[in-house]
């Protein structure tokens, strides 16, 4: 009725029954999580439309799981129009690899796995090389190689600005030169949600759809959307050693160092990386609600258990400049 009379454009002056219809000043609100979701979807669509060859960096962690769900939502009922790329250092938790293969098959998305096989064969590991050099070879170099071999012009990443101080300065579209490097002092201005996708040959953009999400937002979203995550996030008894104050899960006794004693502890991972460089936390949270309860009473940041971030002051910034995610 309303629309019909409106289109005729006449006789509206005497029709007083339009109040909820056209011309009504609506006060609508979307809750903050739906707002973040809508903004992330806008970013996914924008990048997928403007870049010739995008790829999504898939780390198998909780942020990647959320990112994957947002990508599904962005292109629904179509399929995700780009492949996932996992940089496998060969030191990832076996549960991660199992989850990766099962879940990506389940939702029908293309998966590319890339390893710096040369370095792995040469025996690259954090004990022999130190964590910085090991990450440089198995993660940063491997990533840059995979991106250039695949000819990818844009790579979605799950980094959040609340994770670490140098990430707080990162744009949603983070420009990388032809060496894959980030220049924090010379970032493209980024206003509103208008993103500049233009690049020259060899250059690329890292796209961060979760930029404005916090750790709490991620967990709330996982809970509300019932998003599958790697079981390592849930507390369970593991064989572990205590190394420099970190709880390191042991799968294979050959990595136990001299003087270390293997013990069984109920613990869980707060973030996921390589086995030897990711500490567990003592916790009995074995469901998402329990993890959320634990997180809000927790007073420590989630990357605290990542040995690699604490090599020296500003070490994340150094890695990022070199091309690390």
């Amino acid at each position, binding site marked *: 009725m309303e629309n019909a009379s*409106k*289109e005729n*454009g006449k*006789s*509206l*002056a*005497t*029709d*007083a029954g*339009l*109040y909820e219809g056209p*011309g*009504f*000043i*609506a006060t*609508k*609100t979307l*809750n*903050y*999580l739906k*707002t973040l979701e*809508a903004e992330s*979807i806008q970013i996914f*669509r*924008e990048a*997928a*439309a403007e870049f010739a060859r995008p790829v999504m960096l898939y780390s198998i962690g909780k942020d990647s799981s959320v990112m994957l769900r947002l990508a*599904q*939502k*962005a*292109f*629904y*009922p*179509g399929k995700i129009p780009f492949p996932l790329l996992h940089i496998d250092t060969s030191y990832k938790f076996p549960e991660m690899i199992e989850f990766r293969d099962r879940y990506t098959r389940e939702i029908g998305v293309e998966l590319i796995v890339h390893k710096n096989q040369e370095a792995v064969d040469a025996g690259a590991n954090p004990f022999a090389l130190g964590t910085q050099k090991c990450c440089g070879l198995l993660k940063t170099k491997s990533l840059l190689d995979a991106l250039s071999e695949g000819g990818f012009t844009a790579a979605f990443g799950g980094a959040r600005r609340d994770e670490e*101080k*140098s990430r*707080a*300065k990162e744009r949603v579209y983070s420009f990388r030169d032809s060496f894959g490097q980030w220049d*924090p002092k010379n970032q493209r*201005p980024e*206003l*509103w*949600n*208008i993103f*500049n996708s233009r*690049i020259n040959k060899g250059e690329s953009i890292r796209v961060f759809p979760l930029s*404005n999400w916090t*750790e*709490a937002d991620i967990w*709330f979203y996982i809970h*509300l959307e019932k998003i599958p995550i790697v079981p390592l996030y849930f507390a369970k008894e593991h064989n572990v050693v205590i190394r420099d104050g970190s709880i390191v899960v042991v799968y294979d006794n050959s990595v136990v160092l001299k003087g270390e004693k293997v013990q069984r502890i109920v613990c869980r991972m707060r973030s996921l990386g390589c086995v030897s460089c990711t500490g567990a936390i003592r916790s009995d949270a074995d469901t998402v609600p329990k993890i959320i*309860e634990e997180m*809000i009473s*927790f*007073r*420590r*940041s989630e990357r605290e258990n990542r040995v690699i971030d604490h090599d020296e*002051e*500003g070490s994340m*910034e150094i890695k990022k400049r070199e091309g690390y995610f």
Partner: protein
Amino acid sequence: MSVTANKEAWGGFESFIDQNLAKELLRFTTAGSVDDGKSTLIGRLLHDSKSVFEDQLAAVKKSRINRSTGTVDFSLLTDGLRAEREQGITIDVAYRYFETPRRKFIIADTPGHEQYTRNMATGASTANLAVILIDSTKGVLAQTRRHTYIASLLGIPNVLVAINKMDLVQYREDVFLRLQKDFEALAKQLAVPHVVAIPISALMGDNVVARSANMPWYHGPTFLEHLESVPLRVETMSDSVRFPVQYVIRPDASFRGFAGQVASGVIRPGDPVVSLPSERKSRVRSIATFDGDAPEAFPPMSVTLTLEDEIDLSRGDMLVSPALPPRVSRHFEAMVVWFNAEPAEPGRSYLLKHTSRTVRAKALKIRYRVNVNSLVQEPVDHLQMNDIAYVEFETVSPLFFDPYTQNRTTGSFILIDPISNATLGAGMIRADLSDQTVTEDSAHKPVTASERYKRHGHYPALILVEGNPALAARLERALFGEHFEVVHLSGEDTPVSVLESQFKVFESTGLVVIYSCGSLDPDAKRRLKALATDRFFDLSALDLPVEERDAVPKIFSLLQPLRSLADKKGQD
């Protein structure tokens, strides 16, 4: 991470989740330098609202650097890059996140020096509130003017003036009142709508989170209390739909969906839409989402629309309401912030990205530059980095836009260098100039009524209000606020005979006339109706709510056909 930390108060996990989801999100921006204590203020806010993690605080406490006079240098919590920590300056926009039991906050923390105007603009572009810091020992400075100007330029609806370092002026009320008055004068000059001033000491923590015992004379909210309670306006005219198409989703022959984020308006299945630039009409069939079809879509939802008809529509096109279409034009003027070291010159060609549409554009003329410190307009022939100027543009194909003051999404654009791909500048559209293209032919022709209607964006009308001058006044104010050209005439000053004899003049100038009088005799009413035809609105014929406040929105809905310029092309 202070989500509601009191577990007993939850009443179960699900209700705790619900309470958290009900939180609103406030984005605010801060501008300033180390000198005025901005980083200290943010560090203090994060610390006192218990949003800093123990390990982060420990890292700051053991840091080699402490530039503050306190025991903990709170500014270290926010200065992220090595160069910044070492030099004690803030180089880029940094985003911070915290929450209280009432709201979630995103802070865009920007440097305040003149050479970082572009970063300030970046931070301000998405903010609902701007924090302006004033050092109580220094007062309103050039940089205060600069920051306030940028906040008003980028359309931030709320300004919080933090009068800082009150500890250095012995917490004196007269100092606060003087600075508050100085700032209010500035805000008035810049037409900043909502301003609140709060006396604080970021270093000592006075009135940041906790109420200060040192300033018993101050009874207003603390800094955090204000952030938690400032109203967030999220109003949208239901049929001002703007839906820029970002992506076409076509998984198989049976589904063709147009994906995008609603920029304004409310979209429901069955609603009529017009696609731009083709001007083809259709109706919304469904609002498809991963979570099932939605009954309605409104800003800032990202959805996928399917239409009743197979119309040609692709990325860069826009679906709009037929009732309230945007301007469609290749020629407009905008305020521009220039970011690049390479100067902007008239005649240069750029790429202009506006919503999901990228077109070639040319800067035709630089009207003037605004001196961001003195706010004086200066004539210039080129723009340098960090300049803000009023510029006339022409694009190769049309844009579908609204003035920035009405719509931040459809009123904004960025400029890109076609060779280097650098983001050169950002623009906020002020006005459509398509009706001002003067050719040799038209130079001496009189301005027609339809040209006037097009510029106003509405037709003229006559609204009769009997026996309720207060309603007439309120209506005039509301219409004026919605950018109508409106005038309120009272029967006491203007007899109805004068209105009758002058109405054709009002009509040809495109005015909406509100005529308020006592009771009008039926003959006069008939004559007025004959003059204004279907644009005569007799409010006494309507069953309006008693409260004027409630009546106005309803009258508004009746007046919407006045804006249907696009539907009646070539009719006048």
